[in-house]
């Protein structure tokens, strides 16, 4: 058991090392873009504010009555922050697929080595899953640190009269993407990232179906993903289906969604285990 655990940790570490260039690349883009944004956005705000006040002969009070003040939200709502965030999310979506296909593609077919390791093959599945999650959480942590860093950079570049102090939780809750990525309550956080986990489990199972049965497997994968999605969202539509919005309490609907997500997760893990042990082909 201890030996198996060591093998698993080594495999996660190995996968993480293979992800480092990609992860550091995305992190570098996020840091650089965020830093540029935290400087350019307040400077451009100040320049526009001065120009407006001069053109419209406004003093600061009159300006603030007509135009919004500057806050950290001004920075976080800019493309400098949204851009790398979108890049990071799409990058990890791509990486979740690439993490499997790279083993088969190219001159060196590393899948031979992976499948011939004297470890349960489901370890390969979980090591890749863990790695993607470690990557996503690393990126989110950096993004959170960057938001905190904005408080040290941006306010110093804006006239104190025009700066409005907004605390971090308000910045996050007023931001469409951050409110989703950094939920305020632990329950919401666990719920959202569990959905992410189920999504990855279904995606990985779909990929393994394709790798096991090729073109037919691709169709199986799509069908499996659609069935999983229907199963998870179905409870939300129960009131609509039965044309009775009081048929279930919202908490009961949530419970059904959680149950469906657990079923989909368990089926995905067991199906992936079966495919890796019995059906996968190099």
């Amino acid at each position: 058991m201890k030996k198996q655990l060591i093998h698993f940790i080594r495999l996660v570490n190995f996968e993480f090392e293979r992800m480092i260039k990609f992860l550091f690349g995305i992190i570098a883009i996020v840091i650089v873009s965020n830093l540029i944004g935290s400087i350019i956005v307040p400077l451009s705000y100040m320049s526009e504010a001065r120009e407006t006040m001069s053109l419209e002969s406004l003093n600061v009070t009159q300006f603030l009555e007509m135009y919004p003040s500057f806050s950290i939200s001004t920075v976080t709502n800019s493309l400098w922050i949204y851009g790398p965030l979108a890049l990071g999310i799409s990058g990890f979506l791509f990486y979740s697929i690439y993490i499997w296909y790279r083993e088969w593609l190219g001159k060196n077919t590393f899948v031979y080595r992976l499948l011939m390791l004297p470890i349960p093959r489901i370890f390969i599945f979980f090591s890749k899953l863990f790695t993607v999650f470690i990557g996503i959480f690393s990126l989110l942590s950096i993004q959170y640190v960057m938001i905190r860093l904005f408080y040290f950079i941006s306010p110093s570049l804006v006239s104190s009269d025009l700066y409005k102090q907004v605390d971090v939780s308000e910045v996050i809750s007023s931001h469409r993407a951050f409110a989703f990525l950094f939920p305020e309550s632990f329950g919401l956080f666990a719920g959202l990232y569990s959905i992410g986990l189920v999504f990855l489990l279904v995606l990985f199972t779909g990929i393994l179906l394709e790798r096991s049965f090729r073109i037919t497997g691709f169709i199986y994968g799509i069908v499996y993903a659609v069935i999983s999605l229907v199963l998870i969202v179905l409870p939300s539509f129960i009131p609509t289906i039965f044309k009775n919005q009081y048929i279930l309490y919202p908490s009961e609907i949530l419970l059904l969604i959680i149950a469906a997500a657990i079923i989909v997760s368990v089926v995905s893990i067991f199906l992936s285990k079966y495919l890796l042990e019995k059906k996968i082909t190099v």
Partner: protein
Amino acid sequence: MLEVKDVHKKFGRKKVLNGVSFTAQKGDITCLLGINGVGKTTILNAIMNLTPIQKGSILIDEQPQSPDMYNRIAFIPDAAIMLPHMTIKEAMAFMQDYYDVWNEKRAKDLIRFFRLKTSDKIQDLSKGNQAKVSLLVGLALDVDYILMDEPFSGIDIFTREQISEVFSSHLIADRGVIITTHEISDIEHLIDKVVLLGDGVILKEFYAEEMREQEGLSVVDVMREVYNA
């Protein structure tokens, strides 16, 4: 003993193996011969559970396939299967991390035998040297059986000679070897058992020495007879 029993394998509608059965003993070099596409590589992949079979069974010392079998049987495919950016040293460390049967002393012997430099990256090596690295990571495992798929494919004559030497050295002694090759002339004198394949079935199975002594035929002679070449 390694037993392949009534193995059937289809790719789509095409039958590649149609009831293949043979055994390979420890200490023997068993050679799978046949023209391209008769299923030689598929048999090796099936033994290693790298491709599913539709029917039949594969036993290694009477045990069914399991993750632990990779500590008893090694496969050296006809492709570099370590990551190209790895150095030879890193590839060796990777193997050591996972295999209980990794023999570091033998690995160092092989490095000297093949005149490889551990600091070299696999992607920078010639095809011949990449084949040597594949042999290194396979042969340095203290396993009972070794499978080799076309170890002489596309490599120069000097490397071929060096690899041929492996078969008569202590690196192979007492192990069971199953090899597929087109370059039969390089190792004909070393082969114990020959399995001739054609269209997914075994056409003939014989011991090379018996054939030489009793019927005065070499492996190539038998191949000509069987394949009407």
